[in-house]
């Protein structure tokens, strides 16, 4: 696995009685954007902290850029940048100072890129970090990270405080660095974000890898939600193959459809003269429900539902 940016196998980490990671596997190829998905508390941040050498693994194999994240931490950190999900900065420093400090300690940053990113993210670098909102603190970390030209970006829910406009800017940044050949590990609990950027994704739940592959591969496992209104009644819809959770009320219906049945359903609906149709892409929630529906606790369902919006 020489060309892998990250190779994790059988990684286990416990905190007292709690098992955060249980024989977890993760493989990220060099140059790809790898989506790292899972509900809150699944072990995403723990994995990233182990990759950063902030936490020590109990068991398992971890190779990061060909080195050991615990023993070679300093050398590896020159080659990577990290954006935490919850950015904590020094209240008395300004945003600009924090950007420079973190960049400089990483091994230097590109001042032109820094200026450009501050402009694009609309950050006021003269404000004290104590006055920044969560989103603005996140911008500081993001700008500092992307101003450094490194091989690997470890991004832990980097956009959780950004507004949609800034989200777009962030996505452009990720595309810029991958175009230059860098690797990105993007942790998120929002499938849409990963969908927009990711080449491959790994799904983690309860500290274990439950799914890994390209988005197309995984989308086969998901269903599309459709809500439709037609001129003629929708009798007989429930009898079609590949449909689930069908609710029909005269000329209105809501249902979920498997990818393979999508074409047939479309044709069937067309005969009944469609007045309005909304289809929602598969969400992380459904991905989870589909595979683990019975085993998900109510809290987890609520959690995932909220995360998937």
């Amino acid at each position: 696995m020489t060309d892998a940016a990250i190779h994790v196998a059988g990684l286990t980490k416990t905190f007292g009685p709690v098992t955060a990671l249980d024989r977890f596997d993760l493989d990220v190829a060099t140059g790809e954007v790898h989506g790292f998905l899972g509900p809150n508390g699944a072990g995403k941040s723990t994995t990233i902290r182990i990759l950063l050498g902030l936490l020590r693994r109990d068991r398992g194999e971890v190779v990061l850029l060909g080195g050991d994240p615990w023993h070679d931490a300093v050398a590896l950190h020159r080659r990577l940048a990290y954006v935490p999900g919850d950015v904590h900065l020094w209240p008395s420093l300004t945003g600009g100072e924090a950007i420079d400090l973190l960049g400089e300690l990483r091994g230097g940053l590109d001042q032109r890129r820094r200026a450009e990113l501050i402009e694009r993210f609309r950050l006021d670098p003269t404000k004290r970090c104590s006055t920044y909102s969560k989103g603005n603190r996140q911008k500081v970390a993001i700008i500092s990270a992307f101003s450094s030209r490194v091989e690997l970006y470890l991004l832990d829910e980097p956009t959780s405080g950004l507004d949609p406009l800034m989200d777009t800017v962030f996505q452009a940044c990720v595309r810029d660095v991958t175009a230059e050949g860098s690797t990105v590990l993007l942790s998120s609990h929002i499938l849409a974000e990963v969908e927009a950027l990711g080449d491959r994704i790994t799904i983690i739940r309860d500290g274990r890898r439950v799914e890994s592959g390209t988005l197309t591969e995984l989308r086969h496992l998901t269903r599309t939600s459709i809500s439709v209104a037609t001129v003629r009644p929708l009798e007989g819809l429930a009898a079609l193959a590949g449909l689930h959770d069908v609710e029909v009320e005269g000329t209105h219906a809501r249902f979920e459809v498997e990818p393979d049945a999508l074409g047939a359903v479309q044709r069937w609906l067309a005969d009944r003269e469609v007045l309005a149709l909304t289809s929602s892409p598969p969400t992380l929630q459904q991905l989870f429900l589909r595979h683990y529906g019975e085993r998900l606790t109510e809290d987890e369902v609520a959690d995932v539902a909220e995360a998937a919006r």
Partner: protein
Amino acid sequence: MTTDTLAPPETTLPATAGSSELTGTVRLLRLAARRDRILLPVWVVSLGVLWLASVASIAGLYGSEADRVQYAVTVAPSVIARAFEGPIFGTSLGAILMTETFGMFGVLVAIMSLQAIVRHTRLEEETGRAELVGSAVVGRHAPLTAALLLTFAANLAVGALTVVILLAYDLPVAGSLLAGLLLMGVGWSFAGIAAITAQVSASARGANGLAGSVVGLAYFLRAVGDGLGEVAASGVEVSSAWPSWLSPIGWGQQGRAFAGDRWWVLALFAVLAVATVAVAFALTRHRDVGVGMRPVRPGPAHASAALRSPVGLAWRLQRGSVLGWSVGLVIAAAVFGAIGDEVDAFLETSDELVELFAQLGGSEVLVDLFIVFLMGLLAVAVAAFAVQGVLRLRNEELAGRAEPLLSTAVARTRWMASHLTVVVAGSVGMLLAVGLAAGTAYGLVTGEWGSRFTDWVLAAVVGVAAVWVLAGLVVAAVGLLPRWATAIGWGALGVSLVMGQLGALFELPQWVLNVSPFTHVPAVPAEQLEWLPLLVLLAVAAGLTTIGLVALRRRDLVT
């Protein structure tokens, strides 16, 4: 979305006023009391213990009327003693007790009160908890009201405990009652003042700092007023000048408990407390949650070259603390140096004092012992800075700010070393400044420079070995027992103070005294300068630091 046209006509909620602005106060008060269930009782009990110790020591030192008269005639004409301790109003035991202790207790209850207010208002906002609370059914004034009620209750407890302790020592009933009420009044006043600073400042730190400087100003004003006061014909009474009346701490002393009992002074506290609380409530109405009234100035958009390294960052984070401690220590050292000349006259007022000082070292020369005692005391203060400085590491880790830093190419040892550099250099610098300030002040007052000057400087600087042992202990704690590091650090400092510096006064057995690193610092100039104990202390400090560094390199970051 076309909800605009469908929206119901806007209804104006009836303006809520009066009681509804206080909705939820009781629940918030219970929450605040629960969160402080350890902290405030510890404050109250500690103050009680301090009262017990103070009354016992004063009663022991000035047991006879003759001792007290001699004390009074020494203190009353001394400008420095008046400024440093307080005005004297008579020769009863109670009067001397008030002179000696009320200023200190006033400052302590002020600190307790302002911290409690800021903790339950401004800090709550900063952590975002207030927003959560504010969105629940809670009136606008409820959080501040709850904080004030809790703080008032804590002061009531302090006052009541004070009265009980004073009565237990058979002091007059009226004076005891007044002393407790005066102390409570000081606490209430500063609670009100902190309620205002919590509205004005942009952060909890700022609010604490601003309120803290008001406490400092109050202490300074009364020091000026008492220093400028006039000695009455009796020779044992002082009437303070007007600046004392600008300070709540001054009011407490001018209440003259046990020496005339001016009950009407309590009205001043009542007026101040009501006025400050009213202002704070008015300000609450004009302020958004989380924002201060004093705007934060913009800063540089780029990091200076000096900031772009771990040491640069550590200095930036600690420089305020270094400068603050330095200024306070230098002022204290200069005052000590200046009164060094009066020490003979002062100590002679009590045979017990002479005896106590003699236990500190072998010398017969009182000034030597005085130098040892005071420079040792300031070394403990420098150790407090060192403990605080090393605990920065833990606080940075706890606040999640170590994580982004250690994710860059900064090794953990380098990060630790950066803060330790500030602590090591800061403590040496402070002790040197302390020695120089005390020696210079002594020289200016007495005209004696030469060997006396070196005595002061040396007595201060040898303390660095003990300071570093404590710092090393905290490094080891941060490495090995991060969750307990704060408690261990401050606990060790307290133990060192009681067992080392004050231990001789409490007449503790030698093996207990030996626990404190300060006990092993050579008592220069009362004794010869011996190198062995210093080298042993330095070795212990180095060993503890190494343990801490190695342990931190091997463990998880713990938040």
